[in-house]
């Protein structure tokens, strides 16, 4: 998750007890899909910072056009958690390289406007956080007391948001093909947990490994791993068709 309980009373975080700050501290948000890149890549993009207005505009475009997000919004509405852009999203400056986070205690997604590079990045961050929000909406997720629950949502977000696409991994200089997606999902989930829980790497790995098979294969609300926007559009089509589907099988 890119921010389950980022510092708002969310366990052993340096931000616990502190309220919304002009600058978010490292660890106050969950680790984002984009870990700090290696030197050259970071240098290339460090100047492409995004102000509040750009963040708002990119967010609006994502909400209106991105098929991953449109499906998630529909699914959440169907589950009783309709999203209101002003209520459930907040563009803020964050310290460190955090891209965003989901705060379960306030039911809000924080977007780190100074770290979101471009529209494609915004699309992916919003998708990632909405998966956490969707899990929060449909299930009793003990974000702060269960590492297994946190691990499960992180596995799902890394798996379904495009974080671990072949192209993104290549950009991170992680080369692999056969079943590499699963390796990426596992690794990113572990990193996300370690960013917000003061536990050993061994404990984080154990939690991820325990829940991996179940959570990697939980593709709700997509019904499949959406490898691209085409898959997301097909998934949205299926979601809209679900009444016909279930009444005829």
């Amino acid at each position: 998750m890119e921010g389950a309980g980022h510092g708002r009373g969310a366990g052993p975080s340096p931000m616990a007890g502190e309220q919304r700050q002009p600058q978010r501290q490292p660890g106050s948000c969950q680790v984002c899909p984009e870990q700090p890149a290696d030197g050259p890549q970071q240098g290339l993009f460090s100047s492409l910072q995004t102000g509040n207005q750009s963040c708002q505009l990119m967010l609006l475009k994502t909400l209106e056009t991105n098929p991953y997000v449109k499906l998630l919004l529909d699914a959440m509405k169907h589950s009783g958690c309709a999203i209101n852009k002003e209520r459930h999203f907040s563009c803020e400056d964050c310290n460190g390289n955090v891209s965003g986070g989901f705060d379960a205690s306030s039911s809000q997604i924080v977007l780190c406007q100074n770290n979101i590079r471009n529209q494609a990045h915004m699309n992916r961050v919003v998708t990632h956080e909405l998966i956490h929000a969707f899990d929060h909406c449909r299930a009793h997720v003990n974000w702060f007391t269960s590492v297994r629950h946190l691990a499960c949502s992180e596995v799902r977000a890394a798996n379904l948001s495009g974080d671990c696409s072949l192209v993104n991994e290549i950009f991170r200089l992680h080369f692999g093909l056969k079943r590499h997606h699963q390796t990426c999902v596992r690794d990113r989930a572990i990193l996300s947990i370690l960013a917000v829980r003061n536990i050993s790497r061994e404990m984080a790995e154990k939690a991820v490994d325990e829940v991996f098979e179940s959570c990697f294969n939980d593709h709700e609300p997509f019904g499949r791993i959406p490898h691209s926007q085409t898959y997301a559009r097909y998934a949205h089509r299926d979601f809209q068709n679900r009444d016909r589907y279930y009444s005829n099988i």
Partner: protein
Amino acid sequence: MADSGSWRPPRPCETYHAEWKLCRSARHFLHHYYVHGERPACEQWLRDLASCRDWEERRSAEAQRSLCESERARVQAARKHTLVWALRQSPPADWHLPVPQEKDK
């Protein structure tokens, strides 16, 4: 399953065709291999497409049975893993409430 008088294929036939085409594409082969380490199996989509068209043309009972069986198997496969968490009966009570006051300080 709806009674045979009102039954229709769970998906439009065009959807079965689109899924089969996507499954057979080179891009999907690459995605599937990247995730699962093996080639995708696409034959069932083609069988379902044939059943769907058969039902549309002849209202074949066998086609109806075959489609239902195929889709139930897909649903079963998607649900075979026990969930890590308990599902809610209703959404979180505070979802629509204003952002808590202390967060705005």
